[in-house]
């Protein structure tokens, strides 16, 4: 039990995905599995815990890893001639990483609310008087530095951002937003949104198509103007609209 709990709390602290397998019922040849647990990682690290179910173990580990990848809790049933087993795979998913480029008026409430919703939040701005800890006490990281260079560094040693990353472009100048947009246009981000009026954004896309030859369809997945259209006016309300749009996107919500 102790090793299982330690594995779960350590994974949470390191913001790593894991699954906890719990035995709900076990009959016949599986009776010994009652009350046992196993923590499984998405990669091949050895699981931690006291649950073993013989020949079905590889199948169980594969099912748990699939549940992690799908970010979905799953019930499993195994039935053999000699017994029956029901398990619950509880997924502790890796939190989504929200990068907010631009540390202005919208970024402050957005960073606060996103942390409440369990996002790992990074705020980036080239102005240290805006990008600092005092302004963003709940953010995981606050970076003051050149936009494009620092954003690229956030990819780590990977060539692109992954599908667990959301990017919100709300810098003080549209030229920075566009520069960053072009940098990540081919990355498989979970969410990509950019602030700006409908008219302004249309003009930007036209310009990029004419001057850089970037086909219009490449912008289809960009959420711009950013945020659900709920009539938001104040910076805090706009932050609500943005976060609602991100949740709608990553959770597969009903709003088209």
């Amino acid at each position, binding site marked *: 039990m102790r090793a299982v709990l330690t594995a779960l709390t350590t994974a949470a602290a390191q913001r790593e995905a894991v699954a906890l397998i719990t035995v*709900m019922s076990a009959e016949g040849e599986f009776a010994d599995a009652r009350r046992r647990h196993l923590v499984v990682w998405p990669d091949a690290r050895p699981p931690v815990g006291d649950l073993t179910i013989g020949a079905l173990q590889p199948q169980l580990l594969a099912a748990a890893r699939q549940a992690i990848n799908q970010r979905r809790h799953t019930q499993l049933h195994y039935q053999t001639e000699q017994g029956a087993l029901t398990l619950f795979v509880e997924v502790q998913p890796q939190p989504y990483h929200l990068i907010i480029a631009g540390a202005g008026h919208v970024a402050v409430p957005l960073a606060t609310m996103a942390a409440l919703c369990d996002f790992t939040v990074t705020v980036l701005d080239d102005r240290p008087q805006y990008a600092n800890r005092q302004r963003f006490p709940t953010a995981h990281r606050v970076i003051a530095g050149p936009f494009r260079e620092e954003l690229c560094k956030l990819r780590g040693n990977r060539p692109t951002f992954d599908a667990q990353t959301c990017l919100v472009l709300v810098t003080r100048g549209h030229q920075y937003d566009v520069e960053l947009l072009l940098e990540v246009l081919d990355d498989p981000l979970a969410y990509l949104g950019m602030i700006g009026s409908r008219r302004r954004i249309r003009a930007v896309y036209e310009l990029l198509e004419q001057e850089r030859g970037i086909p219009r369809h490449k912008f289809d997945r960009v959420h711009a103007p950013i945020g659900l259209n709920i009539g938001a006016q104040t910076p805090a309300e706009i932050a609500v609209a943005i976060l609602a749009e991100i949740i709608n996107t990553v959770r597969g919500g009903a709003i088209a």
Partner: protein
Amino acid sequence: MAANFYQQLQALLDEGLTVAVATIVNVKGSTPREVGAKMIIHPYGQHIGTVGGGCGEADVIRAGLDVLTDGQPRTVRIDLTEPIAMQSTGVCGGILDVFIERWAPDAETMESH
């Protein structure tokens, strides 16, 4: 939420307490909380988390106290499908299955195996 949950569970076990953990493992229809929602049933009533509140949760707490007593894990079905006109708080319209098991500080777990 999940992160916090296991840290809180660990803290209770570190105090030497034995608790019951309830997890929603299946839902049908409209329910107040989702699959995976968890709750700690505390022997002295200082429960943590929620599996939906109201009448359904009272049933889960009762079952959790039974689990604390006999150590037998069990799955309870909470039915919230009574007609809205009835004098009841369970008007969400759905059904949920809640698995409850006991978590004890390590020494006790070893004995029970």
